[in-house]
């Protein structure tokens, strides 16, 4: 066990993947000499060379499109998109090529591409540096979408993602990059919990609270605060956003009968909708109240002086828990 920051834990996972498979190459803007704007790839170009850790020209479609060609040639490219808001120029290559090549070629051409995207807000940045675009990709068949919430998971899940023969969008909660945690770097990623599985991170009886990435920490805090108020909250860290491990969520909701989903992304058409709809389908008769979503609003990510109003914080999620439980809350008395 070592104490590592979240960013360092990914760095160490990338290093292991580079060591274990000569076909792994890293690509992105400023990932070489600089080590990435968040230093996640720090030192890797020095140790693995310019052909394994590639500073690319400034063009995201170009990065992902050439990654497709490298995958065609048998490589396993790991692409860094510098910030969430810069993934859109590559959207066409991701959605039309990365996601569909395996289906198109009846499995002949594999696309073992990992696309790393630092995402989410809370760091006081200007426009395009705090977005949560995961739902776009979760709605895109052919992709897998995952997000770690702890240094240990970040370390193992990045290695699992790289080892996976399907393309994986790997969303890194950038406001947790500096959080520290124990990481067992000797853990065999093949033996660790698969990235497809959700994890119950706090047991509870009264209500199920589902979160992922940056909000898992907040959700745990919610459970503690709720406990003070006599509510028992079960917290689930989704880990995989597409597909969501509904079996785990379902089991919890069958027990608690109530569901709250929290994410930073825009509410309408977000993952929360899919989770609410699917869980309602799967356990309608167990539900004692409608699933509650506590999310970012349907607005462009606001400038930093306002971001705390957009981001679901502790109290807003607690208020959602109150709603799920039918306790007095901010909407009490409102019809519908």
């Amino acid at each position, binding site marked *: 066990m070592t104490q590592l920051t979240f960013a360092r834990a990914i760095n160490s996972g990338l290093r292991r993947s580079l060591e274990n498979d000569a076909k792994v190459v890293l690509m992105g803007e400023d990932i070489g000499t600089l080590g990435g704007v968040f230093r996640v790839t720090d030192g890797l170009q020095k140790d693995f060379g310019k052909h394994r850790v590639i500073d690319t*020209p400034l063009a995201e*479609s170009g990065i992902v*499109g050439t990654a497709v060609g490298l995958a065609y040639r048998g490589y396993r490219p790991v692409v860094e998109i510098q910030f969430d808001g810069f993934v859109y120029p590559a959207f066409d290559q991701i959605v039309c090529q990365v996601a569909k090549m395996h289906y198109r070629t009846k499995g002949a051409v594999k696309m073992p591409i990992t696309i790393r995207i630092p995402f989410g807000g809370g760091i006081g940045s200007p426009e395009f540096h705090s977005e949560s675009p995961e739902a776009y990709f979760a709605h895109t068949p052919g992709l897998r979408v995952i997000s770690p919430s702890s240094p240990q998971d970040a370390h193992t899940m990045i290695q699992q993602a790289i080892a996976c023969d399907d393309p994986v969008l790997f969303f890194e909660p950038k406001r947790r990059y500096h959080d520290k945690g124990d990481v067992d770097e000797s853990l065999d990623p093949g033996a660790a919990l698969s990235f*497809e599985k959700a994890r119950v991170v706090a047991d509870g009886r009264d209500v199920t609270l589902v979160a992922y990435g940056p909000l898992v920490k907040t959700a745990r805090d919610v459970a503690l605060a709720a406990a003070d108020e006599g509510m028992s909250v079960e917290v689930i860290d989704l880990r995989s956003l597409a597909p969501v491990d509904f079996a785990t969520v379902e089991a919890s909701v069958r027990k608690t009968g109530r569901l709250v989903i929290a994410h930073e992304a825009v509410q309408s058409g977000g993952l929360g909708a899919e989770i609410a709809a699917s869980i309602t389908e799967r356990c309608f008769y167990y539900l004692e109240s409608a699933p509650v979503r506590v999310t970012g609003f349907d607005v462009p990510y606001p400038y930093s002086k306002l971001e705390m109003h957009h981001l679901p914080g502790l109290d807003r999620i607690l208020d959602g828990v109150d709603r799920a439980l039918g306790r007095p809350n901010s909407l009490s008395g409102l019809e519908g």
Partner: protein
Amino acid sequence: MVTDEVGQGGTTAGGPGSSAGQQGRTGQNLVQLITPAGERVSHPEYDPWVQDMSDEQLCSLYEDLVVTRRIDTEATALQRQGELGLWPPMLGQEASQIGSARALRDDDFVFPTYRDNGVAYCRGVKLTDILRVWRGNASAGWDPYTVNLGTPQIIIGSQTLHATGYAMGIQNDGADSAAIAYLGDGATSQGDVNEAMVFAASFQVPVVFFCQNNHWAISEPVRLQSHVQIADRPLGFGIPSMRVDGNDVLAVMAATRVALDRARRGGGPTFIEAVTYRMGPHTTADDPTRYRDANELEDWAQKDPIRRVKALLERKGLLTPELETAVQQKADAVARDMRTGCTTMPDPEPLDVFKHVYSTPHSWLDRQQDHYSRYLDSFGDPAGAASEEGARR
């Protein structure tokens, strides 16, 4: 300045830093080794690259050209007869496709568009496989690795990045093969194509951009995409280019060999503009009389890529009745096989819709497949159950 046939040329304006044309850019002469009349003209720089083209080789190129045209005609007929959903004819572009494809080695890797079915034929793709996509029986007809040929790209320009990335892989592997991307004149406007040039030039990878300037992107003439020659574009990225008569199979072959040779020797990317003409419609769904002048087609018919090779063979006394018969028989056989392969192609199974989305199990999709198979089981006739009108009523 050599301007091409639909009015591309340099801009003209005065003053400092004025026109692109005045800044040392003069446009390139078209490389030609066989005239439209079938005369073999010599070219000191390009001749050495087709020295090995013996009489026998010339006859075999002729055969490929004729067969390719026959494939096109037959596929068009199959579409008209309702056996194919759509077909994008390559009529008029045979020399560009055969000349370039025949220059390739087996271990080179090709990233084609929907229109490059002559290239696919050259790479050894089975004709039935070529038709799968157009019949609606598959999203792609072949395993790319068996013929080192990617599947036809529909998103305009996308494949140029794939070829560039593939070439990055070749470079990393220290191999001496090359990647080649086919693209159209319209494609040059897409961001992806320009980014591909940026990456290819930055990393100096072994990739060839082979652009068939067939003068049209559906209804849009090439001058809408560019007022200057397409071959000028790559120069600004630091990529050398050639502008060849795309209806001249030898010139195309020579230029492609020049480019491949450079790629193999570590000399980086090359761009080839093959000036040709789309003599047919964009696809069988298109009606070019709505947007283009019949005279233009007439003019280009004079430059037909097959006619001129035929004339060359004739001049050389190679166009024997035996050759004509052999080529004709080959073309007939190919067309027959293709038609049979097309009409006897087995339909896919309903549950194929769920296959190959992922390489490993996927909880969402597996559940949907399970539900849908139950649904189908609840009906006698799956096709009816899945029709818009339904079978239940």
